[in-house]
C-alpha cells in the first residue's frame, strides 16, 4: 500500500510530476484527503457517538450505583464483586448460558455437517432438500420462538410424536429440567445455516482426492473422515466461533418462550446472561450493575474465543500449510 506522502507515478495528465523529496502534500492531494475525511464522516460520527462514547460511559456506569434517574454514586468495583460473590442469579445465569452454548453449538455443527454430507451426494431433488433445510434459518427468531411455544406445548407435535412410542412427553417449557433441552432443540432446528456454508466448502474439495482414495480401497466413511473433514476444519472453526458468540448472547428465545412471572420454574431454569442483564437494566433500573454484567459477559465470550483460537493449531487444517 502506498503511503500518502509517496507520490504515485503519473496519476493524471494535468499534474506535473512532483519533485522527489517534496515534504508537503500537493494541493490535489490535500483535496483528496479532505474528501476522504468528508466521505468517512458518517462512520466517524457513528463510531464516536454510538460506540466509543457509549463504551467509555459503560465502563463508568459499571463503577457506579445508578438507577438512571438520580445522580450516579461511585462505588468502585462493588458491582463486579457483588456479581461474582454475592449474586446467586448471576452464577445461575452464567451456568445456564454455558450449558446452552456447550451443547447447542457442537450439536448444531454435527447436525450441519451431517446434513451437508448427505446433500453432497448425488441425490435427486437435491435443490428441494437444500431449500427445506435452509428454510428455518430464514424465519425471524421471534416467529421461530412463537412457533416453538406451540410445538413444545404439552399437546404439541413433539409430545404427540413421543406418544407414538408410548412415552408421555414433559411440559417442556414449564418443567425446570426440560427448559434448557427445549431451547437446544429449537436451536437445532436452525442448524441448516451451517449446512449451507459447509456444503459450499465441500464442493471445493478436489475430486481427485476421493478418486485416489477410491483406488486405494477406502470406504465412504473412511473418505469422509480422512478427506472431507480435514478440509472443512477452517469453516468448522469459523462456525464454532460465530456459534459461541451467538449462543452466549441468546435473548429473544428465552424472553418469548418462557414469559417471566407466568412461569417461575421455567424462568429460573432458563435465565441466561443477556435476559438477566436486560432485566437488571430495564425492569429494576440497576444501570450500574447491568453495565458490570455486560462487561463480565464480554470477558466470558473473550475467554472462550481465545481458548478456541488457542486450540486451532491442533486441529484446523489450512491448505496453504501443506505446500
Amino acid at each position: 500500500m502506498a503511503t500518502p506522502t509517496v507520490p504515485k507515478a503519473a496519476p493524471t495528465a494535468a499534474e506535473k510530476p512532483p519533485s522527489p523529496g517534496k515534504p508537503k502534500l500537493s494541493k490535489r492531494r490535500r483535496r483528496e484527503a479532505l474528501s476522504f475525511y468528508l466521505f468517512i464522516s458518517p462512520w466517524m460520527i457513528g463510531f464516536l457517538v454510538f460506540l466509543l462514547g457509549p463504551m467509555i460511559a459503560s465502563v463508568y456506569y459499571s463503577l457506579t450505583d445508578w438507577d438512571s434517574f438520580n445522580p450516579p454514586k461511585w462505588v468502585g468495583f462493588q458491582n463486579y464483586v457483588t456479581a461474582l460473590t454475592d449474586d446467586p442469579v448471576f452464577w445461575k445465569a452464567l451456568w445456564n448460558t454455558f450449558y446452552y452454548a456447550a451443547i447447542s453449538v457442537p450439536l448444531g455443527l454435527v447436525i450441519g455437517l451431517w446434513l451437508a454430507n448427505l446433500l453432497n451426494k448425488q441425490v435427486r431433488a437435491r435443490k428441494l432438500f437444500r431449500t427445506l433445510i435452509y428454510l428455518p434459518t430464514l424465519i425471524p427468531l421471534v416467529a421461530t420462538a412463537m412457533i416453538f411455544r406451540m410445538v413444545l406445548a404439552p399437546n404439541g407435535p413433539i409430545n404427540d410424536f413421543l406418544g407414538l412410542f408410548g412415552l408421555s412427553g414433559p411440559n417442556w417449557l414449564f418443567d425446570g429440567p426440560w427448559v434448557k433441552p427445549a431451547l437446544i432443540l429449537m436451536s437445532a432446528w436452525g442448524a441448516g445455516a451451517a449446512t449451507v456454508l459447509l456444503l459450499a466448502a465441500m464442493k471445493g474439495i478436489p475430486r481427485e482426492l476421493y478418486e485416489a482414495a477410491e483406488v486405494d480401497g477406502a470406504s465412504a466413511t473412511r473418505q469422509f473422515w480422512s478427506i472431507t473433514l480435514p478440509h472443512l476444519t477452517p469453516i468448522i472453526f469459523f462456525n464454532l466461533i460465530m456459534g459461541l458468540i451467538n449462543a452466549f448472547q441468546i435473548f429473544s428465545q428465552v424472553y418469548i418462550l418462557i414469559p417471566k412471572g407466568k412461569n417461575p420454574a421455567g424462568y429460573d431454569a432458563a435465565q441466561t446472561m443477556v435476559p438477566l442483564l436486560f432485566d437488571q437494566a430495564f425492569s429494576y433500573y440497576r444501570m450500574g450493575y447491568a453495565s458490570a454484567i455486560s462487561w463480565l459477559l464480554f470477558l466470558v465470550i473473550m475467554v472462550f474465543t481465545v481458548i478456541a483460537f488457542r486450540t486451532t493449531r491442533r486441529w484446523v487444517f489450512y491448505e496453504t500449510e501443506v505446500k
Partner: protein
Amino acid sequence: MATLATPVRKRGHEERPAKGRAPAVRAFRATPFTYGTLLIVAAILTTPLVFVGSIALSGDATVNNGAFTIIPREFHWDNFARVFGTELPVGTFLLNSVLISLFSVAGQVLSSGLVGYAFARLRAPGKNTMFLIVIATMMIPTQITMIPQFILFRDLGWVNTFLPLIVPNFFSNAFNVFLVRQFVSRLPSELDEAAMMDGLGFFGIYRRIMFPMLRPVLIAIGIFTLTHTWGDFMGPLIYLNDESKMPLALGVQYITATSQAGQAPPWNLVMVGSILLALPMILVYYLGQKYLYEMDISGGSAGVK
C-alpha cells in the same frame, strides 16, 4: 502426498469411467439410507411449519380448548383478513415494520457505500489506522453499548419513537463498510481515473461511476440490513411502549404477553402474524440470493456457490 500421484498414473487406463458420466466415487453415492435420512429430516423440519399453518387456520373454539392438530382440519381463511381488521392491529404492526426497515436499509446503503468507497480509493493520512479501527469494532458485542445508548436516546427524548431504531443506520456499520471496500478494491481504477480526467470531482465519481457499479454489494447490504431490522426484537422492546408504534416482531409477542388472565391468547391470529413475519424474509432471500452470491467478496477466489 503419495496418494495424489496414484490417479495421475491411472489416467488413460481402461479403468477410467466412460466419458460424460461422473466417476462413481463411493463418498458421493446416494444409498437408500441417504434418501431415508433426508426424508426423515425434511419431515422433522417441515412439521413445525405445517403445524403453524394448521393453527393459523383454526377457528376460535379450537384455540380456546387448545385442540390443535398438525394437519389442518378446519380452514378459516378469514383469519388472514381478520388480523387486518379491528380485532388486532397487525396492519399497523406491519406498516411500522416496513417503515423502520425501509429507512434503516436506505441509511445503511447510502452511508456504507460512501465510506467503503473512500476507504478503498481515496488517499489520506491516517487512513490505515482508521480502517484497523473499523475492523476492530466488529468484535464488540452490542450488550456493552446497549445501556449508554438507551440513556443517550432517552435524554434526546427519542424513546417511543422510531428514531433510535433508524438513525444509527445512517452512520454505517463496520461490516458493511468492509464489504464495500473489498468490492471496490477489485474494480479497475482506470474507471475513476478516466472520470477524473473528464473533470469529475470525487463525489461526482462516486455518484455517477461507482454507485451504479456497487449495485450487487449494496443490494446484499440492503438484504442483510432488512433481515436484521425486520426480525429485531430487543431494539423495539427497549425503545417502544405504545402498541401503535410496535413493529410486527414485537407486536406478535405483545399480543400473547398481554392476553387476559385465564384466557388463551388468540393463537390462530398470532400464527397468522408469525406467517406474515416470515414470508417477506423467505421472499427476499429467494429474490436476492443471486446478488448475495454475485457479491463475491472472497478476493479473487470462486466465492460461495
